[in-house]
């Protein structure tokens, strides 16, 4: 295989780069090579958003066949742009042209004070603007800006600017032009970028087929698998880690696919971004919406992958408790061979898993939940929908409830102190199936099996809850760190089970003194 340059669309033209280090980030390239200074470095770890840029790529489901998404340039490798388009703040308005509507709205609303974070906010708003015809609401704006820190304004004028942008004359990107440019490089060969020696030799491969990926990893079992780089970017920027050979999953169609099988199970490819993966998961299990919103900012979810979260196996990765509660399984591949492993059996210890050298995570399988039949009003439609979707129809009287709660110091874009996921199936007042899973409570994401055992077969009463809480206390030994003390984690883990119990009681209408009362902070409003 011969070396190939990195090819992408930039400033309206096809760019070929072959003179950068293999781990050069998009931000470094912009600021040090192109000397395009509009994109700022605030933290160099993807947590402040000053470097937000927008990436375009071919997507048959997107308007004009091109999707646009905001990402952090500081933790995105230039090699990952191969085959894509890059837009920065300089692309929004030429020096002699009127400002883009989001820029003008920021001026009109006094959305910039020191101005350093502003290009990042502008690019997050631009991404929102390009992805929506209709104006967003307050919550959607806040979510779109969750990865952008401003220390001056208190955000209010920026939110106002977001609302104002849609009221200005529309100015949309000509996606057809971008589409044509991307189409022209769509048939490029597999990327095999080899950095010149004068910048430190290094290699990035991006095979375009599953077989090619398996072959590349077989040939180089010590190579580092690269997906969204939301973790690897930190290894490079903050730890100075040497990564001589990266193999990027991005181009493998099977790894980018989300499919649903006849029994309703989801298969999510290992390179599917969080944004896409959580949309599919929430469609399947609406109770995960809150977790999906708080998982991370769009700029992180637009790059990071569900597969990366699983394969990295951080004890505080927020996807795993929910996936454990849903009995997710993993499809691993090595060479041409595959094997299936339950997520609950995947982790061996702190950031250690059963993955062998050369083996990779191919997809995550999430079984369909049994359909809840406990609510009389929902029986006809739910049963009908289940039948039409080919799902198994459960006996009447089954109640299935799932919840996942994340506890952190800040609501958005924060790392978990405790993340919990619960699933319970009740039939005739008894718990027939219970899943209790946590992040932040052990060296790996864990199921609390003793707690599940206490719940199994019991009625879900206050006494059962208390016994289950005691079991939790006995089987989980979290640590103390900057996010929380062990004692806090212990108590909150038990309290989250209590919250789930409260919510189950409310759903079943069995706790009159709680009926209709808010049990989550986002359900309350200011007093009138």
């Amino acid at each position, binding site marked *: 295989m011969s070396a190939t340059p990195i090819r992408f669309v930039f400033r309206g033209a096809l760019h070929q780069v072959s003179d950068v280090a293999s781990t050069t980030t998009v931000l470094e390239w912009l600021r040090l090579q192109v000397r395009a200074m509009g994109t700022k470095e605030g933290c160099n770890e993807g947590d402040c958003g000053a470097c937000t840029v927008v990436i375009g790529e071919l997507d048959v489901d997107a308007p004009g066949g091109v999707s646009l998404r905001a990402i952090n340039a500081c933790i995105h490798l230039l090699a990952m742009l191969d085959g894509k388009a890059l837009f920065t703040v300089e692309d929004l308005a030429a020096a002699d042209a009127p400002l883009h509507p989001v820029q003008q709205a920021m001026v009109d609303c006094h959305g910039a*004070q020191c101005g350093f974070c502003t290009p990042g906010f502008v690019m997050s708003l631009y991404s929102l603007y390009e992805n929506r015809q209709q104006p967003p609401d307050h919550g959607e704006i806040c979510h779109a800006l969750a990865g952008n820190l401003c220390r001056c304004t208190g955000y209010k004028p920026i939110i106002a600017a977001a609302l104002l942008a849609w009221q200005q004359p529309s100015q949309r990107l000509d996606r057809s032009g971008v589409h044509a440019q991307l189409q022209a490089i769509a048939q490029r060969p597999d990327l095999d970028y080899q950095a010149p020696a004068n910048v430190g030799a290094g290699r990035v491969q991006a095979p375009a087929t599953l077989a090619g990926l398996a072959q590349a990893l077989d040939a180089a079992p010590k190579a580092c698998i690269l997906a969204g780089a939301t973790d690897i970017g930190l290894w490079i920027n903050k730890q100075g880690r040497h990564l001589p050979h990266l193999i990027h999953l991005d181009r493998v169609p099977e790894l980018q696919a989300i499919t649903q099988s006849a029994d309703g199970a989801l298969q999510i490819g290992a390179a599917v971004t969080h944004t896409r993966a959580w949309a599919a998961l929430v469609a399947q299990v609406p109770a995960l919406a809150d977790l999906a919103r708080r998982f991370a900012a769009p700029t992180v979810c637009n790059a990071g992958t569900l597969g990366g979260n699983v394969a990295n196996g951080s004890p505080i990765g927020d996807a795993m408790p929910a996936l454990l509660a849903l009995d997710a399984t993993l499809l691993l591949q090595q060479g041409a061979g595959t094997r299936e492993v339950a997520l609950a059996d995947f982790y061996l210890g702190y950031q250690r898993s059963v993955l062998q050298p050369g083996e990779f995570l191919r997809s995550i399988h999430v079984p369909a939940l049994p359909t809840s039949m406990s609510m009389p009003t929902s029986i006809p439609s739910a049963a009908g929908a289940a039948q039409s979707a080919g799902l198994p129809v459960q006996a009447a009287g089954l109640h299935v409830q799932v919840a996942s709660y994340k506890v952190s110091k800040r609501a958005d874009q924060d790392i978990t102190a405790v993340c919990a996921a619960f699933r319970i199936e009740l039939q005739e007042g008894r718990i027939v199936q219970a899943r209790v899973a946590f992040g932040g409570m052990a060296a790996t994401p864990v199921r609390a099996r003793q707690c599940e055992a206490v719940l199994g077969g019991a009625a879900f009463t206050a006494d059962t809850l208390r016994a289950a809480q005691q079991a939790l206390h006995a089987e989980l030994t979290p640590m103390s760190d900057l996010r929380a003390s062990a004692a806090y984690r212990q108590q909150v883990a038990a309290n989250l089970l209590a919250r789930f119990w409260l919510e189950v009681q409310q759903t079943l209408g069995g706790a009159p003194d709680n009926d209709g009362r808010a049990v989550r902070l986002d359900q309350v*409003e200011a*007093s*009138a």
Partner: protein
Amino acid sequence: MNAPVTASVIGVASAHESAELHVSGRATYIDDLPEPHGTLQVALGLSSIAHGHLRVLDLSAVRAAPGVVAVLTGADIAHNRSGAIIADEPILVDDLIQFHGQPLFAVAALTRAQARAAVRLARVEVETLPAILSVAEARAAQHFVLPPVTLARGAAEAALQSAPHRLSGQLAQGGQEHFYLEGQVCLAQPREQDTLHLWCSTQHPTEMQHLVGHVLGWSAHQVSVECRRMGGAFGGKESQSAQWACIAALLAVRTGRPVKLRLDRDDDMRATGKRHPFLSQWQVGFDDHGQILGLQVELASDCGFSADLSGPVNDRALCHVDNAYFLDAVQIRSLRCKTHTVSHTAFRGFGGPQGMLVIETVLDDIARHLQLDPFDVRCRNFYAETAGAGRDTTPYGMTVEDNLAPALFAQLVQDANYRARRAAVAAFNQGGGPLRKGIALTPVKFGISFNATHYNQAGALVHVYADGTVLVSHGGTEMGQGLYTKIRQVVAHEFGLPLDKVRLSATDTTRVPNTSATAASSGTDLNGKAAQAAARKILQRLAQVAAGLCGADPAAVRFEGGRVRAQGTQTLDSGFAELTAQAYRARVQLWDSGFYATPKIHFDPVTKTGRPFFYFAYGAACTEVAIDTLTGETRVLRVDILHDAGRSLNPAIDIGQIEGGFVQGMGWLTSEQLCWRADGALATHAPSTYKIPTATDVPQAFHVQLYAHDNREDTIHRSKAVGEPPFMLALSVFSAIRAAVAAAVPGLQPIALDAPATPEAVVRALGGLERTDPDAVGRP
């Protein structure tokens, strides 16, 4: 001579003068400037222990690393002691390491990546000494950077003894990272004849000039410092920018090449000072109505390893324990504790917030004890609304002549519908469940002027070019607060010009010397008056020219709308540019300087008495919160603010300061937690672990109004300073959270909530970490 206010640019909500540059990415910060040919990039080697002797610093592998051009250590620096007030800080450690993260050496290389890679090759041996890492340990060990100070009036002890009610308490307040989005950065360029020019992200170009001169052994006229704008500062670039300027300067002189030092975010957070953490103890005596009769407070602050600005910061804390309240018999003792942590420094409010949070906590506890509405208890303790009839003098002997707190309270209690909402909050809490609400209305009274009188001066230089355009230089720096925008309005107003005829030059010590830091909220007050004075000198000469042209009295010449008009023996109606062109040909000086020194102020640093402040700025905030008793998470539901910016020069900019200040204060008191490990290392050294508020944390119901009121003192157009005061509006958030905690556990006393009120702090305040009683969950 002024144009009438109706046609003026004063009081107009004009956009920030750089707004279009900001949004288009064309505003240049120091890292964006074109680098001079051959610029070297610097990285720092930091200490990995908190306290000990540096025994071996073997940098041979560092020197040999690819791209390395120069290495600097403490031993290389002839004048290796520096500091804002006392020279007690090494530029680079030469023997004693005093905090984890203290710079040991600097590496200059061809690229930043090479410099950073080389740093990792150092071999360091140290002899570790025991470290004092908390204010409590330092207090117990009487380990101070500066001697204790007491501010007292009346017989506090006797008043406490004889009071019908007494309470006591302790309050721990965390520090705060500035988190300016643009990190510390300096570019130093050697120039001819042993001179050096520095582009430095700093609030204090003059101090950078002096300290760089000091470490080089050079005079002030050899060093020039320039700053067009900063990407945020908040006090963190007042003294904290000096070390990086000095290192860049030393390396530039040593190599003869331009040198840029831009700190990586993590290094910046490890190696620069923050807001002082405080540990406070208090005892209060009061009557049946909640009026304070006697108060004793001890404020122990964590100053870190050196004095830095800790003296004035703690003085301001002392002078703000009263907030808006008359304290008749009071004794406040201030301990300036020395710890083996980074040296804490200026941060918006400058000790004021820490002093004020104590009295607000005391008043809430008094109200709870007496089962009164804290609003009424606060009103009962306010300074008299008019001076001269008692209850009008601060503990430091200044008469409060301009008390707006009662008026602000009276209006905001209505605007925010406080009474009815407080009842609704109580009803919500009666209903049980895991959530509780709290509501609080708190005042702000903040003294405006530097406590140290001599800093209260400023200069400006105004150029009117012959074509009628104006360039203004002044000593203030632009950090986003809108100083340049306001100065532009002030000068445009004087000449009767539209804003686009007036430009601001970058702040530069070669244009205006001997400046004070842009700090203490004073930027517009000081520099605005100085710029106005300069403009008026030129204007007088222009009026003479105009009067001469038409035979009018110079006092009758009007400058407005870009035109000059006068009626004398003839009628003059000239464009401003035509007049300036004529004045130039007539050999009239069209540029001048202006100077301003704040009147009336004086302060005795020994007795801590006098009139340290020209005036006070006031505000009031009403905040409603909800807490989750299961997890301790909190959410701010609604905020109503009424704030006194005097006669606002620019309402958009002032409201921006108020909203931003409030949210920054909210972050300090809720999610922003600095955590140090047992070895003294800062564990929260990046935004991944240190959490400033995001958009979601700001309530949609966030109502901010200016209280229209002319400053009674003769400030620039009767406006008031607005940079710091709004920060303390956020004390209402903490009061409201404490109220919610109290509602969750009836009879709980004390409400032992530490700041910040993180989820864990709230759970602890709710009764420790033992309570896990499902029977209690969901029941009233």
